[in-house]
């Protein structure tokens, strides 16, 4: 048991560190932080995307974009453990890559698995270099946790094209994206998982309309996307007609790309806050027994996530697939962040209600109070995450699915 690199890993780390030292994007990071001092994403997204693209381009030119992708698609053909080492070395600069996370983490691998060779060589390199930004169009108003309940229609035309009509929702980044992958229903007369088909499309196609959603926090990071008679050639289909569900699983499986990434928990912010905030009697909050008890639980859970990631990294280092323990990250961190943020307000008594801006620990915790609501939903709700752990890790039976063998157009749609 040790935290040491193997000789090959150490060599790769040195290579990465040397390159980053010579190309460090301090200028870009300073711009990002000035735009976004409390991490609230209040700043104009166009500005954030602009600085992010500059760093991504620098990385791509140096051969450090999408490390695990084959070279012909803009990658470096690196191993998963090399990817982790790169992330560690990139450190805080990694924030600059955030607008590309979904495109490179989920859309790219799906295109790689299902598109023809010409398409891959055309679409993937600009996705890797950040020239093109991609989004993932899965969720719908009628299908959130039940993604397969989606209603966006794809109708085959006489000339072989497909006509897309419907609505997607919660689409992160759609307002600045160039391309997307979209899952549609091509056949409503068969059970819901069987009549789905996946496509990639140009987000500037006629008939695509993006409307930002104002979030509970007041910010807008994601969107509704409307499709009105959007024409997609059959050559943009990913996977077979009716096999869209399996294709979407490829996309979602790639969520594991985030192994080793730092998960926001609110613990460092709360530690800083409690170490400087004075209670009415003049003592520091961190000296209060109830604060210490709660913080100890949060800190140990946060540490547990860090060391669970270390175990996954160790598996990668041995060339093995990490175990299922990585599925716990968001389920641990998101509700904890919400509790921590509220605890920070509670300590301040009625004054806790006051809105705070800026980069202080208290202001960051205030932002997290809202950020946490979304985190508990995005990418699988707390409840879906628990179902996944129960079914896929612990081997419990799947839920009874009353709509499983029912043709999609016969499934009841009204609760009452």
């Amino acid at each position, binding site marked *: 048991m040790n935290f040491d690199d193997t000789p090959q890993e150490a060599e790769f780390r040195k290579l990465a560190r040397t390159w980053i030292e010579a190309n460090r994007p301090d200028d870009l990071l300073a711009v990002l932080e000035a735009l976004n001092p409390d991490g609230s994403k209040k700043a104009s997204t166009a500005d954030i995307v602009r600085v992010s693209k500059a760093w991504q381009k620098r990385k791509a030119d140096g051969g450090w974009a999408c490390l695990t992708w084959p070279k012909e698609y803009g990658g470096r053909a690196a191993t998963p453990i090399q990817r982790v080492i790169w992330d560690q070395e990139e450190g805080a600069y990694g924030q600059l890559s955030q607008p590309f996370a979904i495109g490179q983490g989920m859309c790219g691998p799906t295109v790689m698995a299902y598109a023809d060779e010409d398409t891959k060589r055309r679409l993937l390199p600009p996705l890797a270099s950040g020239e093109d930004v991609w989004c993932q169009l899965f969720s719908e108003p009628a299908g959130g946790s039940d993604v397969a309940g989606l209603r966006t229609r794809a109708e085959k035309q006489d000339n072989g094209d497909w006509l897309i009509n419907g609505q997607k929702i919660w689409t992160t980044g759609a307002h600045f994206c160039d391309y997307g992958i979209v899952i549609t229903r091509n056949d409503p007369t068969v059970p819901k998982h069987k009549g789905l088909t996946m496509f990639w499309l140009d987000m500037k196609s006629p008939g695509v309309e993006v409307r930002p959603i104002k979030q509970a926090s007041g910010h807008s990071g994601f969107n509704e996307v409307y499709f009105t008679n959007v024409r997609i050639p059959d050559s943009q289909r990913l996977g077979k007609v009716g096999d869209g569900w399996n294709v979407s699983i490829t996309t979602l499986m790639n969520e594991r790309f985030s192994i080793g990434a730092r998960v926001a928990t609110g613990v460092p912010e709360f530690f800083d806050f409690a170490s400087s905030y004075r209670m009415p009697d003049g003592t520091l909050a961190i000296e209060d027994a109830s604060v210490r008890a709660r913080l100890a639980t949060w800190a140990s859970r946060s*540490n547990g996530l860090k060391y*669970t990631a270390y*175990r996954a990294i160790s598996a990668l280092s041995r060339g093995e697939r990490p175990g299922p323990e990585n599925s716990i990250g968001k389920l641990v961190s998101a509700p904890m962040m919400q509790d921590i943020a509220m605890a920070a307000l509670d300590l301040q008594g009625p004054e806790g209600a006051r809105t705070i801006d800026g980069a202080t620990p208290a202001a960051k915790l205030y932002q997290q109070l809202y950020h946490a609501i979304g985190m508990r939903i995005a990418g699988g709700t707390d409840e879906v995450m628990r179902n996944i752990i129960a079914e896929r890790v612990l081997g419990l039976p799947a839920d009874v699915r009353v709509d499983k063998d029912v043709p999609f157009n016969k499934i009841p749609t009204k609760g009452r």
Partner: protein
Amino acid sequence: MNFDFSDEQKQLRDEARRFLDENCTTKEVRAILEGKDVYDRKLWKGLADLGLLGIAIPEEFGGAGAGRLELCIVAEEIGRALAPVPYSSTVYLASEILLRAGTDAQKKEWLPKIAKGEAIGALAFVEGPGNPTPGGMKASVSGGKLSGRKTLVADGGVADFAIVAARAGSGENTLSLYLVDLKGAGVTRANVETVDPTRNHAEITFANAPAALVGNEGEGWTLLTQALDRAAVLVAFEQIGGADRALYMARDYALDRMAFGRQIGSFQAIKHILADMYVSATLARSNAYYGAWALSTDAGELAEAAANARVSATQAFQLCAKQNNQVHGGMGFTWEADCHLFYRRSNLLALTLGSLSWWEDALIERMRKRNAA
């Protein structure tokens, strides 16, 4: 990074598990619970024969000379089996304290006996309610004779010797550790009933019992807290072993038990309980691994890592044990079902070595110290 146990260490785990599966079923645990004996002597002998009592004792003192990582491996299996033996008192506490602070003569006298299963050790530091404080201990030594009362000594009723925290004088910083032969003069013992009768506890009264200094005079609080930190990592492994088994016992019951025409494990209310148990046990395991690394390398991070592992493992075993009862429904409340064996052990382990709130406090203090540095 290789944040995992080696193949040889995993092989040791398999061997220990196989041995305990055969020799320490819940039938053996229940025999001690129901008072057939104070500990499982046959199992103790078996652990000695396998070399597991002296696994971390150097060969020169009759042990196997393996490291603390191997000890962590065995601890997890002891915890998983709910082994009704004085393993933690003898191996994590008495033997470890002697190894770090004992004189050569003390090591030569006791460690080979421990390795052979011929001597049981204990740590006596509790004097009445409340978590330990340096000023809270009244037992004292004068002219090499120890007097005082230790109100709850784990395995105190079966131990051959004890490491006792006592004052060398009346001033501050006089707390010291002493080795007392419990079969010698001036020692009176009375067994105490606890939440988990599968582990012996006793009150020990010392009246001018001959006592030999362990470590330096006045070093008692430092040695004691260091010993508790080191043992906290090992007990955390016992706790994750117990938590893991309680989790899979509940999972298996949820698969077998039918209600409303379905396996109860198909209800989300049950699935979510089990998922939360899994999350807690996983976090605790990862934290225990970090504690194991710190323990085995004597890292500067050990104090914080130990408190972190202790808090996490205590919460995980308590959650898994109590929710195992809950998933079992009415059956979980019976004497016949094994759930209460885990519930009892989880509660005992949550209190021994200092209770959860004490360790939570320690974790924060140690985090502050690191951040100030």
